[in-house]
């Protein structure tokens, strides 16, 4: 520092406040996130799709339950036109844009809620396994390992068919995906716990007579929040693709309710007649959402890494 400057002169300097500003972990992360171009692009994309899902239905002139008159000439649906920007579906002639907007909202809702459940269950199981160790850890992690050696999509398919027989309500799908999505997060949290529980501040808390539960959920979990946030964000994308796949095969949400997968499922029947629009737009919506989430998750990973430079 310039030794000749007085305090008044220092205060006049443009970077004076910045130097004294102290930022906590989250403010630093936010600063890093803002500089991550791909992350901003991804967030914008994601927010755009959220807005489309939320306010789209109020702007679009059609109702998602509206069906058109039968039309022998266009049984496979009409291509995009001014009246129907994304075309309409085969047989029932529902407006594809309306379906996509409503499907986007429901798919996003299922993705976010299921990932939230996964995050909570995963944090709970991983936290307990990692903190207590011993036989509890062995049993829990054996189960996690065993389940992770299965292609879980196979299991989810069978489970949703047996539970809903192709007419499940969307909360059922949330529960099913939440039930199978926590494994990765549990493993992650356990690994972080194993290293954190040896830290001095944990010993200090224990010496002060703090209970185990409080140590886990007040001290350890907040310190392992970054990887949980990243994994949960990326998990939303996984659930959206997974739910679309299950519904696409006809084992998921009731076909009358538009989710992005359900719309695709209907399109399969007419696909060999070349009507691309019915399948193209809902799939493109999935790609946009997932791409946005993946960019965002990557940005979060970099931003939340405390070793990264500001």
């Amino acid at each position, binding site marked *: 520092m310039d030794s000749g400057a007085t305090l008044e002169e220092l205060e006049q300097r443009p970077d004076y406040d910045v130097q004294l500003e102290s930022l906590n972990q989250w403010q630093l992360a936010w600063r890093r996130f803002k500089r991550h171009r791909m992350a901003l692009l991804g967030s914008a994309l994601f927010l755009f799709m959220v807005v489309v899902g939320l306010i789209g239905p109020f702007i679009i002139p059609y109702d998602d339950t509206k069906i058109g008159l039968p039309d022998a000439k266009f049984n496979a649906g009409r291509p995009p036109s001014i009246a129907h920007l994304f075309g309409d579906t085969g047989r029932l002639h529902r407006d594809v844009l309306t379906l996509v907007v409503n499907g986007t909202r429901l798919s996003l809702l299922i993705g976010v809620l299921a990932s939230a459940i996964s995050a909570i269950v995963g944090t709970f199981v991983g936290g307990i396994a990692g903190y207590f160790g011993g036989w509890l850890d062995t049993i829990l992690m054996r189960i996690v390992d065993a389940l992770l050696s299965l292609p879980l999509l196979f299991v989810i398919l069978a489970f949703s068919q*047996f539970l809903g027989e192709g007419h499940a309500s969307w909360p059922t799908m949330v529960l099913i995906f939440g039930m199978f999505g926590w494994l990765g997060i549990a493993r992650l949290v356990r690994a972080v716990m194993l290293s954190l529980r040896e830290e001095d501040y944990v010993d200090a808390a224990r010496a002060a007579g703090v209970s185990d539960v409080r140590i886990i959920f007040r001290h350890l979990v907040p310190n392992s929040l970054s990887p949980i946030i990243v994994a949960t964000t990326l998990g939303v994308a996984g659930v959206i693709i997974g739910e679309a796949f299950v519904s696409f095969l006809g084992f998921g949400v009731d076909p009358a309710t538009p989710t992005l997968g359900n719309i695709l499922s209907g399109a399969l029947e007419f696909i060999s007649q070349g009507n*691309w629009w019915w399948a*193209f737009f809902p799939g493109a919506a999935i790609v946009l959402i*997932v791409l946005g989430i993946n960019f965002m998750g990557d940005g979060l990973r970099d931003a939340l890494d405390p070793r990264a430079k500001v």
Partner: protein
Amino acid sequence: MIRFIIRRLIGTIPTLFVVSLLIYSILQLAPGGPEQRFEQNPKITPAAIAAFKHRWGLDQPIPVQYCRWVGICNPDGEGLGVFISNSRLPNFLPGFLGGGDNGVLHGDLGYSSNTGSSVASLIGQRVLPTAILAGIALIVWVSLALLTGILAAVKPYGKLDTVITIFNYVGFSFPTFWLGLMLIVLFAANLRVLPAGGMWDARTVPIFGSPEYWKFFGGHPVNALVDLGRHLILPVITLVFVSVAGDSRFVRAAMIDSLHQDFVRTARAKGLAERKVVFRHAFRNALLPVLTNVALELPFLFGGAIATETIFSWPGMGLAYIQAVRTFDYPVLMGILIITALVVVLANLLADILYAVVDPRISYG
């Protein structure tokens, strides 16, 4: 080394046991059972359903059903005698030692509750188509991942790297089944250059796997292979496009890591051609983590194969699984799941062994 492999092989047994227990319980958690497929059929009386359940042993408590499925219990036994085989020895022993002949332990995966045929023979018929699809996809996928990963790593943050990175991100975000649909629309429905699905052209080629097929294959190997190849193109592209992205990133990271090592600098310093430095020195060292990663990704290949097989009506295990789900065919579901888990566990083991064999720094005592 041999001791390590044997120890790991023995270690897979409890894992598979836990897996089987878990999938059995998960499938039982959902209401109903194989009898659910009669639900929509007004001609089937409750008495007929009860008889069906009795014949299939579905009226037994679930632990007993599981025990019979594994082959520890003898379905002919009563009370505590269930553990004893018909030749009065413990039922779990192999057949030639006086054990039973039922259950997975004795190689019996049960019978399809839908068609009544043996699950093992059903899987046997379906393994080859899936293996052909997944195997070719795996080869294309790994080669593409290596190629793009290395090209990206040679000049990180260069133009080519940026292009490959964008491609990877987009590929990573594609739902497999949607890509398949779009390919069908483009190449089968509109351009009409490739078949929309199936594994053979039914007009000229006999059913795949039948004796006639192999006779045809022997007689016209070129025609048969061309036909198979045409049907493979779209499913393989579908499977590869999505999978390649993650691995390409992985190869890139491993290569960048490897290119910064001292031995690479030494190789450059002694004047080796850049091509040799990249492929002989850096690449060989980057290959190990890549191979392990590929082994660990096998379950995703299977998962992707389900989607791909459904869209392209490829007569493999994935399609068989979907049909089994539709008809509440629990024995087939269990059979396919346990075989898949076995493949995955063995692949993990292979990854560990690869590590130990290739990398001298790791010892497994």
